[in-house]
């Protein structure tokens, strides 16, 4: 048994980690927030140039032809530094949707430019309060009308993959029928938009019934991102507690703090284990992917939730200041908790995968 990342994957992680540690100091995040920036564009370009954005895209589309685990390794590192880039929107959701459900022409047209980062995509599903999968925006021929809100990273995106019922459509955003309105985003490092389509031109994507797989695969990446971020919180809290003196000894010497962080550490290791397995299941196209993705998502949400909250708590008052670094994660955590479906959504999906559990007519989501 070798239930671990491969040496190549570890090298990829290290490469990404070194780059990001260098390129994303916390002060750069503060500067982006102060500037009301859409994203860290230079970082995005650099990630593209280094091949990270095309990691799991096919080689004939300019990608590296790697798999979900490799992509997960990158997602975890981006999560660790809270990077302000549309990786999740463009690579994990939009490009993956095109790869899974797009026509050959759509793939040929968009994927190579998405792999380099030149074109950014976004994924439009939610229609206001309530569940991820909005049901009101539908396609009539090649025309789309209605509102998707919120849509992450739509400000820098050239195209949107739009969920319409069980299907997907591709919409270029620079056209008269599309208006974008920037909303106030709880995660100050990931802008969200309201997208209004008014008889906009849309291209249906031919692959039918791919929505579930898209969500499962995105859930795996969200889990990796959360694990990286949770681990960053754990390390930050530990380091602060080691340094901070209280009543004549290190804060880290108090059981209240030790046990709190020990529990966080357990959560991180469990979440990482599920993320590994879900990545493996995605790469093997295992029938286990739906259950594995749901389990990974659930443990990752719990782990990051505890890590983000207790990291701030360990910091005490200083943690509440903008100059400290806890808040980036405290806000991002809630986003990752609802992104691609909340806990209830994935709990229900996990249960439905269990033999015998779908026998009754239940109403629980």
């Amino acid at each position, binding site marked *: 048994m070798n239930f671990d990342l491969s040496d190549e994957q570890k090298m990829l992680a290290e490469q990404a980690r070194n780059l990001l540690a260098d390129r994303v100091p916390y002060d750069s995040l503060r500067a982006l927030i102060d500037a009301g920036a859409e994203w860290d564009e230079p970082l995005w370009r650099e990630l593209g140039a280094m091949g990270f954005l095309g990691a799991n895209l096919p080689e004939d589309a300019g990608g590296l032809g790697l798999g979900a685990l490799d992509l997960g390794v990158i997602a975890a590192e981006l999560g660790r530094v809270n990077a302000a880039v549309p990786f999740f929107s463009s690579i994990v959701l939009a490009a993956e949707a095109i790869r899974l459900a797009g026509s050959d022409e759509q793939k040929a047209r968009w994927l190579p430019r998405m792999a380099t980062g030149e074109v950014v995509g976004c994924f439009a*599903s*939610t229609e*206001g*309060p*309530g*569940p*991820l*999968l909005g*049901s009101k925006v539908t396609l009539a021929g090649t025309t789309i009308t209605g509102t998707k*809100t*919120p849509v992450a990273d739509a400000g820098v995106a050239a195209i949107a993959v739009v969920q319409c019922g069980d299907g997907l459509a591709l919409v270029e955003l620079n056209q008269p029928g599309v208006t974008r309105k920037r*909303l*106030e*985003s*709880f*995660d100050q490092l990931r802008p*969200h*938009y*309201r997208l209004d389509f008014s008889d906009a031109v849309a291209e249906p994507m031919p692959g039918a019934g791919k929505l579930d797989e898209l969500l499962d695969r995105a859930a795996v990446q969200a889990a990796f991102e959360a694990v990286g971020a949770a681990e960053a919180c754990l390390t930050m809290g530990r380091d602060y507690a080691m340094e901070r*003196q*209280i*009543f*004549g*000894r290190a804060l880290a010497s*108090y059981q*209240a*703090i030790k046990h709190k962080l020990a529990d966080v550490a357990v959560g991180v290791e469990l979440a990482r284990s599920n993320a590994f397995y879900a990545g493996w299941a995605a790469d093997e196209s295992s029938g286990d992917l739906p259950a594995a993705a749901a389990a990974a998502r659930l443990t990752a949400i719990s782990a990051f*939730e505890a890590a983000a*909250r207790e990291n*701030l*708590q360990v910091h*005490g*008052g*200083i*943690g*509440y*200041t*903008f*100059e*400290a670094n*806890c*808040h980036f994660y*405290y806000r991002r955590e*809630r*986003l990752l*908790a*609802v*992104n691609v*479906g*909340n*806990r*209830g959504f994935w*709990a229900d999906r996990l249960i439905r995968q269990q033999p015998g559990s779908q026998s009754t007519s239940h*109403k*629980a*989501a």
Partner: protein
Amino acid sequence: MDFNDTPEEAAFRAKARDWLAANAPAHLMPDGVRLPDTEEAERGRAWMRALYDGGYSGITLPKSVGGQGGTVIEAVVFAEEESKYHLPKGPFTSIGTGMALPVISKHGTPEQIARFAEPTLKGELTWCQLFSEPSAGSDLANLRTKAVRADDGSGDWIVNGQKVWSSWAHLTDWGILVVRTDPTVPKHKGLTFFVVDMKTPGIDVRPIRQISGASDFNETFLTDVRIPDSQRIGAVGEGWACCMTVLMGERLGSGSHKSAIAGLLDYAVATPDMMGGNALDNGAVRQSLAEALAEEQAEKYFQARLRTMVSRGENPGALAGMVKLAYARRLQKTSGLALELRGMDAMAPASGDAATAEIQMDYIWSTVMRIAGGADEVLRNQIAERVLGMPGDVRMDKDVPFDQLR
């Protein structure tokens, strides 16, 4: 068991209610408009003056210093009635009567009392507190701001250091300040308490930017600030006792209690699910909110029990800390849950969605609630030690001179 006032309380309440009906309306804050800080502070001074004239300023302070010599329960009753009006209350009014005057009246000289008490009670003198420091949070006595005697024989003190979390320090007249005057003795023993004019040269107040985006709190830098010895409160080295006078004072919520969970139930009902129902149809949401509601109600009746103790002249002590401990963690849990049940829309609501904005702020504010006024961990310690009689933590700093601590 009843929810009624005692006859004395009822009489006091009736009087207070009448007085407020006659006097409060002229001082109401506008609804839905955020006034500039300076104007809010000015209005606070005016309301203090009205309270003073009406005989409601410093209700629990002794008559000898100009207070009303009333009971804690009278203060609670008055606060209950006062809270029915939207009045200019805040740290700029409460720190003077609630923190500065108790210390001055207990530890100060007759001259100091004469100088500070009446102007403070009248709102002519407002106060901020300069206690916490970057290195002194839960362990307040770990403070490093130091004062040494001026070498000119004046007896004045020269203060250098940095204070944090001093609310409204930029708009108040004076500050209460605790500093280290002797680093060679154990840390609780080398502290001295002062009052300081905030316009003294060398005092630099800078707003702290918070994660909420607001800047309600300040950092205050003190650089060669000269303070006359006449502004020392209590003896040199008696600073910790002065702090205790402030910190151990009885505190009790005003008892007014709006249900936050009721709002979350509405929020859930207003959130559609995928089956034509709403988020409250989900049993997990339903049960979490039911348990939170049950706990919230319990807290309300627990406060009624504490209120009853105070009304009998008993001191609830660390029992009162249970309220904040339960409240803060519930606030984080339930506001976090509400964001989750609403889904992605909660992360970037349509403009004008006040409910989501408020829940977002609650989720952020809950982190402060878990820290300020006794962190969760400090409160659990206090409950274990003072309510359950369990031993204190092992202390490594007890008899060690401050300058030999790490």
